[in-house]
């Protein structure tokens, strides 16, 4: 090995990890600062320059739950809309993905691309008719049911694409063999398909949950008090009179925790979900 090459290798051994660590730290700094701010007393959180060493406290989190306008109902609404819409998505997406992946449907790719194209259109373009429909036609404003339906439709294309790519991993030969041996469709589904597809169902659920949990535009427009969700509530924590930043940081951290947990749990499947199943 030449002298120059050896030097280059040594530089790579140090420079690459160093650069990666520095960039990683830059990207995570805003989050760490948000958590730190949420653990400072309100008057310590809003100083120039930042009071790095101020005493830590959990009071802001306590305050979110015990203030005159607590975060609890909004969190409950977020859980209800995210969980129920995710279950609905699975109920609709699994049969569809099965039809597309395991039993060939004529022109299946057209159906797939139709699903995908609906995801690519800006949701904001459909909001006005949905707003008028809920407030003036069915007169059910400020209601979680309408949010659940919208989130279900929002996540359905992602779920169909993801589930199809998971179900496509089931070797058709096994299913052929089982049906020749006289196994019923139900038995094939429960004994052969389900075990292979289960991790995929879990990952799909987590990703649909994250997207529903994050959604804010429809939640803001279609709810006011009763059906308000976590993301909408956090926006109301911005104040002008007194020191509000610590409580705002606590609210922002609190509603992000479930997403962080779900995201890290589905880390290896995250790419597949976010790229609509196009990347394994």
């Amino acid at each position, binding site marked *: 090995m030449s002298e120059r090459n050896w030097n280059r290798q040594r530089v790579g051994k140090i420079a690459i990890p160093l650069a990666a660590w520095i960039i990683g730290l830059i*990207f995570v700094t805003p989050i760490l600062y948000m958590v730190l701010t949420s653990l400072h007393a309100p008057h310590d959180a809003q100083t120039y320059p930042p009071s790095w060493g101020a005493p830590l406290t959990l009071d802001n989190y306590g305050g979110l739950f015990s203030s005159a306008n607590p975060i609890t109902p909004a969190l409950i609404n977020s859980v209800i809309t995210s969980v129920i819409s995710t279950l609905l998505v699975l109920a609709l997406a699994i049969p569809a993905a099965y039809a597309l992946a395991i039993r060939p449907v004529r022109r299946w790719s057209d*159906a797939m691309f139709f699903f995908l194209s609906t995801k690519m259109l800006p949701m*904001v373009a459909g909001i006005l008719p949905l707003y008028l429909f809920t407030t003036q036609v069915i007169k059910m404003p400020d209601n979680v049911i309408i949010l659940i339906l919208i989130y279900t439709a929002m996540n359905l294309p992602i779920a169909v694409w993801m589930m199809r790519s998971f179900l496509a991993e089931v070797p058709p030969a096994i299913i052929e063999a089982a049906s020749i041996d006289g196994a019923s469709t139900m038995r094939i589904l429960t004994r052969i398909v389900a075990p292979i597809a289960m991790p995929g169902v879990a990952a799909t659920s987590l990703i649909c949950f994250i997207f529903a949990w994050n959604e804010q535009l429809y939640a803001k427009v279609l709810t006011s008090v009763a059906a308000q969700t976590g993301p909408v509530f956090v*926006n109301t924590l911005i104040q002008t009179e007194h020191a509000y930043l610590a409580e705002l940081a606590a609210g922002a951290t609190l509603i*992000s925790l479930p997403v962080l947990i779900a995201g890290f749990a589905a880390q290896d499947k995250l790419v597949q979900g976010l790229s609509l199943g196009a990347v394994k």
Partner: protein
Amino acid sequence: MASVTADLPAAAKPAASRPPEAYKKWGRESWKRRAPLLPALVFLIVVTQLPFVATLVMSFMSWSAQPDAPEKSFAGLDNFKTVFTTAAYRGAVLTTIEMTVVVVGVSALLALGIAMLLNHAFIGRGVVRTMMIAPFLIVPIAAAVFWGNGILMTGFGLVDGVLGQLGVPGAQDIAFLTDHPKLAIEIELIWQWTPFMMLILLAGLQSQDPEVLEAASIDGCNGWQTFVHMTLPHVRRYLELSVVLGTIFIVQNFDSVLGMTGGLNSTNIPYAVYETFYSAKDYGVASALGVVVVVGSLIIATFALRVVSSLLEEEN
């Protein structure tokens, strides 16, 4: 209507997983096979496509919900005229384009660099990868309000504070959100979307055959040559995918504008739609804006579908 049928080349049509003989049993059997698709299709059409049709119809109507507004009537192309001749709406269209180009461009380059770093084995790679993903796992509106109030806020924000501690004169008075609102939003969006693109590109890099790279280095290619002739062509499609998907998501961005600047000198189309119907209550113009953003997205989506179908073709 509001769906896309990409005119894919025949080769790009993903092949079904079974030979065509399977279709020969036509009739009852084929409907039995299609039935599981129907609930999802019908649900999607009702909840997502009908509103688009309604928006299209409303975009040709003069319809305002202001108390003193005239009755609803047919307006022809007036709303579209308003959108393209009013400075504020034209500005929203331009802002959307500017934000999307800047954020997607910078994020894609950063993501490619970071993905290449993370493609090497080193101590703590898993930790760095986790740190890199984290920004994408913060609720977007929560990230936006904290960037706007805790990081870029004049005075007590993190950036002004750190600049002050580094001895930058007048750091306490730097007002990113009011002086450079678009830049502030772009920085926050780059922070949020680079991880997403990085994940896709890293998956692409890791699907590259290491033997190919080894062969290249044995044949005496230097790092740059290997990158240009081997890595880049392989990663190209993943780069395209991350760019089109990033574009689709960033065109639709609403939360960062609402949470950071409230639209001050930084209104993009989604925010303008929201403002026009929610505050100004001009349903006709809001719908026309919605149609404009749908048409723009359809153009991008056509590219997106091509990229996805070429990746699918590879899979089969």
